[in-house]
């Protein structure tokens, strides 16, 4: 854990420094977490809600943070869990019968006014949505965010070897999907 984060956590645990430290933490991590969430749920409004919930959870639980992992890993883990919980609960709540997560997320993407991608990028998103949940997470974190496998391993609690294999399989599946729609 870097020294700044260590100081930040210490300040967050002190009542009189808490507000200022939390503001610093939000400013430091909001963009990274937002893009991580956005790639999972695809829609801006939902990403905004999830990001807020993520930080509220951080605010409530920072006192119990045992610093066994880095602050960054802890935040990513909360954001990932919040995003997956959101998808699953919305799939259940939906009035329209959804066949799977990909259908729900595709609807989410299509209804988003802040998606500016061209046709090929839409196809790529479609292809990513065909992947199983874990492979989708791994692909997004590696392909778009270029996250290191070690860091990813801590966030997803999966071995580096398994993550590499997941990324490889995910890339092949996407390639296959793109070939088939040509």
């Amino acid at each position, binding site marked *: 854990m870097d020294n700044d984060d260590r100081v930040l956590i210490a300040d967050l645990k002190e009542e009189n420094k808490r507000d200022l430290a939390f503001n610093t933490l939000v*400013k430091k991590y*909001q963009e990274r977490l937002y893009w991580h969430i956005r790639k999972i749920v695809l829609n801006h409004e939902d990403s*905004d809600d999830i990001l807020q919930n993520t930080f509220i959870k951080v605010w409530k639980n920072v006192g119990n943070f045992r610093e066994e992992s880095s602050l960054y890993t802890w935040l990513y883990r909360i954001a990932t869990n919040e995003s997956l919980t959101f998808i699953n609960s919305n799939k259940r709540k939906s009035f329209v019968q959804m066949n799977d997560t990909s259908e729900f997320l595709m609807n989410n993407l299509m209804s988003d006014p*802040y998606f500016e991608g061209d046709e090929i990028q839409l196809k790529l998103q479609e292809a990513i949505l065909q992947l199983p949940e874990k492979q989708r997470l791994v692909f997004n974190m590696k*392909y778009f965010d270029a996250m290191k496998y070690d860091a990813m391993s801590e966030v997803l609690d999966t071995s580096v*070897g398994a993550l590499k*294999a997941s990324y490889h399989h995910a*890339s*092949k599946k996407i390639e296959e999907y793109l*070939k088939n729609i040509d």
Partner: protein
Amino acid sequence: MVIKMDEFKNIVPKLSNIKKENPFETPDKYFDNFSEQLKMKIEAEKEIAGKQHGIIRFLKPALGLAASFALIFMLVNIPLKKFMSQKVADSNIETELTETDYLSVIAGIDESSFFLLLDEPDGGIEFSEEDLLTYASANTSEYELFIESNN
């Protein structure tokens, strides 16, 4: 299994040809305003938590008192109930009255109070034909009965 860039291009040429651009956008100044929005939400959360804490603090003594009473009641009532039911069972000696006892009770009632009892609308006592016959036979001789039936 480290995939180098060239190798990656060979394995997934179509994917490699797609520009790694972020196709997503956010509303203007979203990140500038985010922390302010979050602050408001956290303040609201704090207020709710404070109210809940206040209600709990307000109700705590009353709830504690109620719980203590319930506990004392249970501690006293359960053993007492057990003890009493045992006591009642022990003292529940069936008192069967014999025919002679009934007759002596009936013999103790004089004639006028017997009829008064019968006339009383809410007396709540009902005599069967058998009771009346028993009474008559105990208090009148066969001769008197014969005379009465002939009148």
